[in-house]
């Protein structure tokens, strides 16, 4: 079977956000999407959701043409992540693309109130641990032992990061959020190195504020470009006039140094 013979299966977290909703709305005709959300449902057709015209409620609408498979779950629980992967595999039999787009974001100063501290664990859990957990479970449940098949189908993970993980924006109160995204970038590099063993590529995207400074379309397109391409261990920075690619893998220490780490 060639890679082009079937619709690709995408497991997408953060489906209720701007990026996730855009992805579901515009790419559900290309992908079978398992759309994971926590509270905010994406306004797209799903197995348990459909659009109607309030004045012509019985008439069919084109919006309902490519329903996603919506999964309500809390990524901060391992059992929930296992349920997500199992549900996706039960529904579609495979996972070709895993997009870790769920994010927790609380911007507050370190001094002055307790909002930042109260949110710190959740931000780190959602932005760093959850992508690790979900990717590892997907590998354990499906990708391991299928090295050749994974390569043939160009299977891959895209971790959605932020320019905040690369740059320090003063007085934005982004300390923990930025730290979590920086950690996610580093995790992506390590994941790329380790998942190569099972034939799964791992990359990241880091977009500036969307839709204010870059379009949501562009941020989403970066994900599909990575899915269609061959990059591994890279971070695509979506900012300015054109995307920039940062290699994460060269940061891997040379073999001779590792015994001293």
């Amino acid at each position, binding site marked *: 079977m060639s890679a082009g013979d079937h619709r690709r299966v995408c497991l997408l977290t953060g489906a209720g956000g701007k990026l996730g909703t855009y992805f579901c709305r515009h790419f559900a005709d290309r992908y079978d999407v398992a759309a994971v959300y926590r*509270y*905010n*449902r994406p*306004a797209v057709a799903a197995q348990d*959701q459909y*659009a*109607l015209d309030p*004045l012509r409620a019985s008439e069919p609408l084109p919006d309902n043409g490519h329903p996603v498979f919506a999964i309500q779950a809390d990524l901060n629980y391992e059992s929930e992540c296992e349920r997500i992967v199992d549900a996706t595999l039960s529904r579609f039999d495979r996972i070709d693309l895993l997009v870790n787009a769920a994010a927790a974001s609380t911007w507050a100063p370190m001094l002055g109130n307790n909002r930042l501290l109260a949110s710190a664990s959740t931000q780190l859990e959602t932005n760093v641990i959850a992508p690790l957990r979900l990717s590892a479970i997907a590998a354990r449940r499906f990708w391991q032992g299928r090295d050749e098949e994974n390569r043939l189908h160009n299977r891959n993970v895209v971790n959605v990061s932020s320019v905040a993980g690369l740059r320090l924006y003063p*007085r934005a109160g982004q300390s923990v959020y930025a730290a979590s995204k920086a950690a996610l970038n580093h995790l992506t590099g390590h994941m790329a190195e380790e998942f190569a063993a099972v034939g799964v590529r791992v990359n990241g995207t880091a977009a500036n504020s969307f839709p204010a400074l870059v379009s949501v379309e562009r941020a989403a397109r970066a994900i599909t470009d990575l899915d269609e391409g061959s990059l591994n261990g890279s971070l695509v920075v979506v900012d300015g006039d054109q995307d920039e690619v940062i290699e994460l893998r060269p940061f891997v220490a040379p073999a001779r140094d590792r015994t001293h780490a």
Partner: protein
Amino acid sequence: MTAEAAGRPAPPVPASSYLICTTPRTGSYVLCEALRRTGIAGNPNEYFSGGYQQYWTPRWGTRGYPAFLKRVTRIGTTPNGVFGVKVHAMQFEHFVRQVAGKPTVPMAERRALLERWFPEPRYIWLRRENRLRQGISYARAVQTKIWWDADEAPGPYDTPRPEALAFNRDLIERSIAQMRQWDAKWGRYFEAHRVDPLVLSYEELVSDTEGALRRVIALLGLELPSDFQLPPSQFRRQSDAITEKWLARYEAESSPNGSAAGAGGSAAGAGGRPARSPRTGSEARSAADLGAFLASRRWWVCTTPFRHLRADRVFGPELYEWMAADFRDRLGQGLFARDLPGYDAAALTVTAANAGAFSIFASPGWRDLIAAILAPDSTREVNVSLHHHAVGSLSGAPHNDLNPGYFIDDDGSEDIIVADQAVCSYRSGTTPEQRPVVERVRSVAVIYYVANPDGYPGWGGATGLYARVSDPVDRPMAAVPPINNSLVAFECTPFSFHSFMTNPRFERNCMVMWLHRSKEEVVRRWGGHSIVGW
């Protein structure tokens, strides 16, 4: 002669700065005056306006914008190094264009240009909740060139033209639209640059100036002396009998049939009402009549955790803005009451007599529309109310709304019957005139978000939807955030568990309405025990 040459200390260089980001007619001069009087919070003024630059450049003898800005930083900075500026959105664009030396400056570059001159800026977003009053005030000032009433002019000014004052509805509406655009510019700047501004309102400022001042001082990390007392402002309130007259005339011209809306419904139309007929939707006899008012024709039916309906951009901007202004007016007039036991909100019942901008919800067309999708067996009786959750209101607990409601039994009428406490107690069925009543049970709940702060979805105040009554309120299966002009609606069944979720940062406002069905039908479906009494 320089300050040093004259033996005076050198002018301070700003170590930190702040911007009062605002629109005209928000009381910004009052806030600037209060900040100046502390002696530690800079000397804020409209330094970035073209008019200010034009007036002072020849008087200071400065050449070029950098020289002008150097002078401004000296004037605007207090000895502790704090610089303040009051700035409108268009003035800010003028500033960044001058600093960048090019006619257009991308949003992404603006913050860096600001920080080149003013380090560590902090932002106060000063807004006015009542757009209609702001529009009237602006229209008056534009006509008369009288921008303030004070003993000492805070800045350069044009020759006053008090004789030019004349009611001009078109000018008021354009003024309102302009204010909205300028505020939106600030919103985009904050979003683009990840700024979390301190939000103050004109209404808050005029009712408690010292309280507002102290919030700004805290933002700046400063401390006022323990014995600090704010002297009375030199600015006198400009709103007067003419303002009230214009307000009444604007409302009267906005209401159906050219007369003012009913008793409680001061129908303040921020953007005016829809020009099409039926103008408010109240005359919509059928769902088809609502076509002129609906913005989005894509609503979503979702079955998780129970069947419910969601819609964004429900109504067109004119009707929405009118509702938002009407809501604010009623809230400002103190018409809401905290009379709902176990529910941490203030509420106001909307009746047929005071429906104002909300009359569309009491129309047969709206009832038919919602009933057709969620509960076709709904009867003619509806209950409509406005709810206000102050910041920090307590979360509720999951409940299903399968409650009874009593109405006057008016068999002869085919009209919609709107609950009215003055005629019949909704909860007990008592009537002052001993009229016959009928007991119904709620069939559909509709929550329509209106008059909430813009641009901050996800910061609390959502409606949580739950699979079980025992679910923790902060762990819903779905949550519908309070995004203006959106709604969530569902059939009231024994399983329609939902709750208000706390709003730690912003107030939360909505219209809530219920459709009803016969008690017999509810008993037939789910048994009499399912009805949750009051």
